[in-house]
């Protein structure tokens, strides 16, 4: 029995971790909105990424059949903003994505910061989208969320675990309306409500 002990302890730890994670699956959704009561944005829309994760591109594809006038430019700069009437930031930190741009995470944060500043100045509405789900839960992604939420006018996320509770709290702090959807494809409704 002794020789199995470490194996058994490790397997118990695994099960413990799984149980611990799953306990936080059902979050409260007190302060969320099913969608916006009145539109806040106008076209054309710039969709860009904060963190260079694949979610940006996926989001741009999901919203394609709403037939808005949108551009997905993951590396857009603040100088590109003059053509657009709404800024959509899709958050999600991807070390591999960032590697493709040969930029550091600091430079990426600066780019996002300048975009936010410029949008405020213009001023045009800012919508923050977080669709990475439970798995995209690392500290860097949260840094991007904390950076952009103070400027946001609307937040859309997935209703998954702890994460969304945290997102709600953050949005509440800055008094921004939040919508949480069950799955990726449901995101079209709230996004539509922001424009029509």
């Amino acid at each position, binding site marked *: 029995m002794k020789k199995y002990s470490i194996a058994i302890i490790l397997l118990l730890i*695994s099960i413990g971790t799984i149980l611990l994670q799953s306990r936080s699956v059902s979050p409260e959704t007190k302060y969320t909105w099913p969608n916006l009561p009145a539109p806040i944005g106008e076209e054309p829309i710039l969709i860009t990424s904060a963190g260079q994760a*694949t979610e940006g591109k996926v989001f741009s594809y999901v919203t394609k059949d709403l037939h808005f006038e949108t551009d997905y430019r993951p590396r857009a700069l603040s100088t590109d903003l003059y053509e657009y009437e709404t800024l959509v930031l899709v958050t999600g*930190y991807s070390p591999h*994505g960032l*590697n493709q741009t040969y930029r550091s995470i600091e430079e990426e944060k600066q780019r996002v910061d300048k975009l936010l500043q410029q949008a405020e100045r213009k001023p045009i509405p800012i919508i923050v989208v977080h669709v990475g*789900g439970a*798995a995209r839960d690392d500290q860097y992604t949260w840094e991007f969320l904390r950076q952009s939420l103070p400027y946001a006018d609307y937040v859309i996320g997935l209703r*998954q675990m702890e994460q969304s509770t945290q997102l709600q709290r953050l949005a509440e702090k800055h008094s921004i309306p939040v919508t949480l959807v069950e799955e990726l494809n449901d995101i079209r409704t709230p996004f539509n409500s922001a424009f029509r």
Partner: protein
Amino acid sequence: MKDDKKIAYVALGCFLILFGILFPVQSMKWSSWIYENIEISLESTDSGRLVMTALSYITWYSITFSFIYMGAMVISHTLSKRFFSIWNQLMFSGIVLASVLVYNRMYHEHYAYIIHFLLLGIMLFLMNFIPKQRYFYVTFLLILVFMLFSVQWLNLIPALSNFGFGTDDFAVSMKITDEYLTNQKLFNTFSTILFGVFFLIAIIITTLLHLFSKQIMISRQYQQQTEELRETKGALIETNVYKEIHSLVHDLKSPLVTVEGLISLLSLKVQDEKSQSYFERISTSLEKMKDMVSEILYEDTKRELEVQELVNYVRSHVRQEDPDIAFHMQVEENLPNLYINKIRFARALSNVLENALRSLKDEGGNLYLDVEQHEQSIHFLIEDDGPGIDAAWLETIWEEGFSTKNSSGIGLPFVKNVVHQHGGTVSMESEPDVYTRVKIEIPVSEKEDEEDDSGY
């Protein structure tokens, strides 16, 4: 194991881990390919390509982790005295988890630790069933690779995201792409199936290896038994020969006595000086011859002997060729002489030494032989750091026929017998895995004392 050899193995282990951790740096093209292909499968709504990319992703990570796991195994194996002890397993798991931590920190990654808890648990469990012999590392690697290919699919099952699986960048990206392309249907089924398939393969391999090694062990045991049988036969013949010689030597005594009688008769008859001195010399030679015959014939015949000579004699009779066993001998200087039956006492010592050597055969270790004087007795201490004997067995081992090695089990009873015959005591103590010590005490030669008394 020797120290410099140890250092070399630890260095090799560190190198393997380092190589594993730095693998992403060396394979930038590969990881870019994975990243690009995730995007391409999204753009072209090509879920087949996404599956290919997933395979590539799992291979890419498997290489990194294979190196880390192998390195950790080499290091922990080298640094812990007993293979697969609790300490060994803890060190192995610790090194792996620490390396994954370093990996995550270094690349700002978020690779799920739960995968490694699971994998370590499974591997340590399976290792109970694979032979820890010559091909250990090869079999370990084989099973590890299949297990890596199995458990990593858990990262790509979207339904498990809520439970802490698949938190690394590629896994998240692929899962969300799959959600867009097939609404999670593809990965939920495909990843689960592949997880199961590879898991099954790994289990089957382990089972086969387990059975195979058992088979080999049985046939080896069989071979050993045949050999033992032959040896016993040989011993039997030897005993017969010994008996023959014994009676021959015995028979020598009667002609000797006759010669002795006749010589004394002759010495009475022939009276010249020269012949008398010849007769005397013949008589002394006859006396010596009679002494020698009786030392061979009777067990309690003893004589004086230097300790060093005894030790040398024993050493030359104990075969010790294993390079993993270090023999340390320490004989106190200026020890008084022993008064013993050399042949039998030496056999007793060799028996104890052979037991110790036998216990070190598998893992190697240290064997100590110390001879020292304590007041009026001489102590022979034979110590080894092999597996040792459970406290519950410490009494039983002295019984004739008790053996855990499938041997005759007459070694220790013989030792006890001989030591008692020399007016001494023998005891054994052991703490399993730490030490096993046999202590033989015999009184200092009485004969020498007598001589000392008469000398002054």
